Structure formats: structure tokens, C-alpha cells
């Protein structure tokens, strides 16, 4: 299976900020948080274009989101907007500081053709222990 290894960081975007102020259940919030940005050459390696589904996996979890290409990222880097989709793959170890590693963890990204991006309600079900 085609997959690449990346260094994954998460962060705020203005769309995510504006989306959460419409509401976490809004379409704006879904669109602004359920994607991962990749360098264009990495996306090409995976054969995925803007908006196509990819699976992001770390030892802590896995999630399907859409891909976006970014000019600002070096090959081997990926960016996830803050939110519940990103938090499927970040771990809880805080190294005794209270702060999880939200930036700079290793992850794999692979094409996920045919797989659906979970909705917010489905992510909440996952937290409840469903699948």
C-alpha cells in the first residue's frame, strides 16, 4: 500500500476560528477542520488531489480526512487544523508538563479512496466507545 511518513503539526487557521464561531456543528466548521495539508509533491506521490480522502495514522489513532496541498509546507511535513479530527491522532502523554505533543509528531498518510470522512456526530460516538 502506498503511504508516506510525515512530521505532523497542528495549529489554528482563521477559517477554523471563524467556523467555530458559527458553531461546531456547522458546515463551515466541518470544512475548516476535517482536512490535512500536504506538500504538493507528497500529494502527487500518493496520487491524491485537493479534496480527496486520505488516512492519517499515528500510534495514537487514525482518521480519514480530505487532502489539501500547500505551498508553505516542505516535503515530509503535514499540517492539521486544530479540532476533533486532528485529535484522533494526537496522544495524551504530556511529559509531566500538562501539554500533549500537538506539534511535530510522526504520522503516516495514505490514500483512502472510497472511505468517508467521519462526521462530528460520528467522532462523538467514537468517544462514547462506538466505532
Amino acid at each position: 500500500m502506498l503511504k508516506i511518513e510525515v512530521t505532523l503539526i497542528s495549529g489554528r487557521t482563521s477559517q477554523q476560528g471563524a467556523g467555530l464561531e458559527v458553531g461546531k456543528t456547522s458546515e463551515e466548521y466541518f470544512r475548516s477542520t476535517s482536512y490535512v495539508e500536504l506538500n504538493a509533491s507528497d500529494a502527487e506521490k500518493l496520487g491524491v488531489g485537493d479534496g480527496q480522502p486520505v488516512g492519517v495514522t499515528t500510534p495514537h489513532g487514525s482518521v480519514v480526512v480530505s487532502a489539501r496541498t500547500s505551498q508553505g509546507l516542505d516535503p515530509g511535513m503535514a499540517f492539521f487544523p486544530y479540532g476533533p479530527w486532528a485529535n484522533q491522532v494526537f496522544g495524551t502523554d504530556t511529559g509531566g508538563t500538562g501539554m500533549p505533543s500537538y506539534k511535530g509528531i510522526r504520522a503516516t498518510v495514505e490514500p483512502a479512496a472510497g472511505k468517508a470522512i467521519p462526521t462530528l456526530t460520528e467522532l462523538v460516538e467514537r468517544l462514547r466507545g462506538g466505532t
Partner: protein
Amino acid sequence: MMTVYTDVVCPFCGCLCDDLEVTVEDGEIAGVKNACAVSRSKFMNHGENRIETTTVDGKAVDYEEAVKAAAKILATARRPLVYGLSSTECVAIGKAVELAELVGGVVDNTSSVCHGPTILALQQVGESKTTLGEVKNRADLIVFWGSNPTEAHLRHIIRYSAMPKGMYTPEGRKSRYVVAVDVRETRMARVADEFLKVEPGKDFELLLVLRAAVRGAEVQADQVAGISKEQIKALAGRMKAAKMGIIFFGLGLTQSDGRHMNIDAAVGLVTELNHHTKFLLTPMRGHYNVAGANTVTTWQTGYPYAVDFARGYPRYNPGEYTSVDLLAKGEADAALIIASDPGATFPADAAKRLAKIPVVTLDQKVTPTTMLSKVVIPVATAGVEAEGTAYRMDGVPLRLKKVVEPHGGIRSDAEVLEMIIERVRALKEGS
């Protein structure tokens, strides 16, 4: 009827822009001027996706019933967690601390997942502080390190740092040299005069080598953390030659490897620079009143976050009494969440605990946390539907305005917390 409110303070990010103009027509917000995209979204959409009614176990109940259920959960829990607070006003934060003390719980705020590591470092090594007004009037060298105001603090560079014309910076942007340090080329990197693309996880090394270069040490390696020796030497020289410089640092330093040690290194660089010129640093605080959450919690307990009242007196230990740790270890057996959404913002393995324990949430909108909560109490939006005080990222307190009546006659965070406190007191006296 139309009313125009001027000098309205924006309750979104730590910039607390205080020049907004909000037009209210027939009790509804009709327009907002001077606001950034996020602020506009907050004011214009404040009525969207609101929690419709007070609920217990998903069933609509009145305030009194919900308060009773909330008080019972908190009063009978062995290790209740009170969390959030950074997007509400200071009186509510004070009430939350009082309630945590009353139930012998832990009170923590969102700084545990944003600038908590900054606080840890500054408690060790101190800080050179200033106000954003001083920056506007004097700073001729501005460094954004691991921070991206073009996405997170949209008017920062326009109002406070890179762009404004000040007393000793009469030409605004032309009077200043702006540097961005980041692991990726953000919009901020493109508008800066100089961009240093640091390798991920190597900020600490770059801060240390810059400090050494400022001190006059010869940099021997050709490059450090992806930055050439020449660029390091040139930047060190430029920093020493500035009349007043400042580092605005963000979560690029606190959420990556090294965490508080990165901030320790940044303070070390600033300390070194103060042998040559005036140099300062300021954390780019995210939630509009996270600085207030730290301030109020400190003046009431002595500590800024991660405060445990289990023994009846406050104890402080980030890493142990911080929310992600308490939830991930399964320690918290009940939670009160105020103005925050840990169900969405915490790593899933910590958020999962919220699905297993009784949770009481005070918020405006439907969120993953309210979906997981046993008791949900809708509250007024501070700074839109309720007044109060908030602290800007530089520690300056500003007064939030109430521009419209609360949605559906609901109460403020402070009022609801006071009701819960009274009910918990009654339960404790009755037992």
C-alpha cells in the same frame, strides 16, 4: 430602534481589539465595523447553533432542576475537575475557583494546553514584560517566533506590532524590521522582512546559538536547525542594534518538543540582549481571557492553573493536576466545563473519559462536549450578551460590553455558577 456601540472590545483572541463598532437594530446585531474575519463571525453568528434549552440526560428541564443536578454531581464526586474559563469574564472565573474549593476539586484552564509551558518557564526565569502600546510606539524590531498572527491574531500586526505608526515609529511598517521564525512558510513568513525556516523540533538549538552569537561567540557549525551561520550572525547583530526589540512567541514553542525549555531559551536570549539594548518578549495568548483565567486563579489561590483543592488548600502541579493528565489517567470522576470544548480540543484518549463520567457544561453552542454532557446549561455570551472584565495578552484589563440582551433570557456564567455554589453549600450543610 437602532443603537451603535463604539469602542466595543472583541471577545475572541488575546488581542482584545477595543475599537469595534457594533450596530444593534431591534435587539439584534445588524453590523460590526473594524472587526477581523473571526470577530465578525463571532458577533454576526452569535445566535447560530445555540443550545436551545437546559437539559439533564438530554431531557429539557428548568434552570432550577439543572442546577440541582449539577450541584449533586459536583458535591458527591471524589475528584471533580473544573475546566475551561478562558472564554468567559473574570467574575465567572472567580466563582469557578470558589466552587472548586468548595467541592475539593481541581480547577484548571485552557492554558494547560496552550501557554502552560510558558508559565512554567517564566516562573523559573522571569520575563521582561511590556504593553502593546509600548510596542506600537517604540519597537523597531519585531520577531514572531512559532506564532502566526495572520491566522490566529488577525489584527495584531495592524494594530499593535508591525504596521501602526507610533511616537518613535512614525513611518509604521517602514520604521520596523519584522522577522518570522516558523517550521513552515506561513502568510506571516511571506509578509515579514526576513524568514527563518527552522527545522521542526529545533527551536531550542536556534535560540541557544542566537544567544551565543549575541554574546560574541563564534558560530562554528555551517548551519544550526536549518539556518546558515551567516543568517544567524546577521540576525544577532540586528537584534543588538535595535532600539527596542520584542519576540512575540506562540504555540510553535510550547506545543513542540522541549516545551517550557524552549521558552526558557527564549528568555535567555532576551536577557542576553538586554545587556545591549531594550528587548522584551510576550506570549501570543489565544483565548481572549486566558490571561485573565491565569490572573484571577493566581490572585485567589497563588497559582495560575492546575490547582488542586483535594486537601482543602491549594496545591499546584502541572503534569499531575492538568486536565489532559487527569482525564487520560481516569482520575477525574466528574467534570464541570465552562466556556470550553475539551471534547473537541483534547486528544481523543483524554476526551473519551468525558463520555464515562458525569459532565456539567455551561456554554452557548452545541459542541462535542455538550453532546457528551449529562447536564447542559446554556449561558449568555460574555462580551456580547453580558459585560465583564478580560485581560489582554500583555496583562492589560479591559471592560467587555453587553450589546444585546441574552438569547432567550438565559443567564451569565457567573450567575449560573453562583446558583450552583449556593446549592452545593445547601447540600453540604444538609448532610
